[in-house]
């Protein structure tokens, strides 16, 4: 049987009495760009955490390229080709920005794929170049603005050269101009190719985002979560017409 690229089956996760993720199932293809939306507290971030094995689900399965993800260590999952960014950015504040990215470049996956790159710094620099913050490479991470921290998160994630990239609010805290730039880089990354010493596999992506207008432009499919369940799944134009989605965002009789 041919395995799908990413398959999520009947995933469940509760925090105390709160059921954050309830019987979520979906699957995606290697070339897809998936948008994941939903009101606050719908469980979007939790779902990403479950896919990268930062959290362990109560039941259900996540399979990546036919291999089970549930119960494995986060670093194993990352080295298999899933990279994620954090919504609340978590840089190593007292390290220079370049060192932040070098940590990712030192992961076994990045080392194996970039063997011809003798200098890890050079590769880290190209990741920063791609994200657009290479001019600040030597500053401490604590001096960065919110927008630049977002870019740092992206640079850190792509430095592992993932096949599936999970972006948690990549446009959060960015100005409209910066948002356009970031959207452009995301599209460029998805096409794949070589950016200096950094190689992009043209990763499939799951993007969690509240700025729907921007999101609609770059994704080919949208999954809507509400109270931990999938309420809609389809191409962007269909999803925005969907009554359940409108109800979830605006409330009963909202229009």
């Amino acid at each position, binding site marked *: 049987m041919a395995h799908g690229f990413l398959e999520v089956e009947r995933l469940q996760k509760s925090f105390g009495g709160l059921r954050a993720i309830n019987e979520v199932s979906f699957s995606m293809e290697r070339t897809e760009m998936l948008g994941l939306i939903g009101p606050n507290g719908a469980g979007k971030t939790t779902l990403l955490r479950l896919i*990268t094995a*930062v959290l362990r689900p109560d039941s259900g399965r996540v399979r990546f390229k036919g291999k089970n993800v549930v119960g494995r*260590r*986060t*670093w194993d999952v*990352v*080295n298999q080709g899933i*990279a*994620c960014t*954090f919504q609340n950015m*978590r*840089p*190593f*504040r*007292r*390290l*220079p920005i370049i*060192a*932040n990215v*070098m*940590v*990712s470049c*030192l*992961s*076994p*996956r*990045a080392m194996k794929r970039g063997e011809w790159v003798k200098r*890890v710094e050079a590769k880290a620099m190209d990741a920063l170049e791609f994200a657009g913050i290479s001019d600040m490479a*030597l500053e401490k991470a604590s001096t960065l603005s919110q927008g630049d921290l977002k870019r740092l998160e992206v640079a*850190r994630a792509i*430095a*592992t050269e993932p096949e599936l990239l999970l972006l948690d609010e990549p446009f959060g805290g960015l100005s409209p101009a910066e948002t356009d730039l970031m959207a452009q880089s995301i599209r460029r990354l998805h096409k794949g190719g070589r950016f200096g010493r950094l190689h992009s596999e043209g990763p499939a992506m799951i993007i969690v985002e509240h700025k729907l207008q921007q999101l609609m432009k770059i994704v080919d499919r949208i999954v809507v979560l509400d109270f931990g369940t999938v309420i809609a799944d389809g191409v962007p134009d269909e999803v925005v017409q969907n009554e359940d989605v409108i109800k979830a965002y605006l409330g009963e009789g909202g229009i």
Partner: protein
Amino acid sequence: MGLLGFYLRKAYTLFKNQILVLPSRTAVLLFALALVCLPLFTRDPYLLRILIFTAIFAILAASWDLLSGFTGQMNFGHALFFGVGAYCTALLNLRLDFPPWISIPIGALGAVLTGLIVGIPCLRLRGTYLALTTLAFPIILMGVVFAIPDITGGELGISGIQRLSHSRVTDYYITTGLLLILGFVMWKITDSKTGILFHAIREDEVAVRASGINTTRYKLYAFCLSGFFAGIAGGLYAHIMRTAGPSTLEVALSFQIVIWAVFGGIVSIYGPVAGVFILYPLLEFLRILPKVRMLVFAFIVLLTLLYMPEGLIPWIRDHIEKECPRCKIRNVAFRKECRVCTARLD
């Protein structure tokens, strides 16, 4: 002849541009030279003995910095590694007649094993909980030592160990030489790629994992490396004292290490070394005031930390050097422009 001259000139240029250009590097060089040359001027046995112990404890404090300063695994029971190193070395020397140059490295390997044994249960803990757990281990081992006096000598410890060498000056050169070499090795480790991962683990462990790094492995590396260097210090101590007793496992020693390291400035390797070289002789010197010795000592440490919260050495370094705002290279404080990128320094 011309070729020799070329290399000599090249070496001189390197020396001038890499070492003499920064006061901190010059200070390290002078410190090393002073240590090496000291026995040429005085052979006072009391002074040499103090410096021998200072060197041993400097290795110990630097190894604590590797684990707790760099990797952020707060260890309040670092005497454990020291004690295991001392006891292993003593037993190997006494029972199996191993000479010091074999017993000390093997004793240190014993401490590495201890690092693994302690490290594995400590993997899940951090912060205060980790500190408390590590504090317990040397106390447990002390209980074991008292429980089997046939092997460990109980409260008296193991005595009758071979001397490190036959003269005090040789002892001095062995210990200070090891301090300089091991200090350099530790500094190189923290400066390497592994060092970056240690830093990153201290800052945010979850983010390191999400970058695809096996944090368990690197935390255990840190425990083992730190244990190895502390074990060597313990082995040296056993051979100098010619006994290995329960005092090497004392809680007081564990706290001494923390005080030395924090006083000198953690996350630097050279900070703790300098801390020991200031505080240990100071405590000896204060014997001229036997009644208020500890009080004065505590007062000095407190005042220093009050006004230099990052430790003494980083404070001094920040005052004699400044960082170029553009290229982040360090420069002597009195320079007007950066020595590399010629940006203005203000």
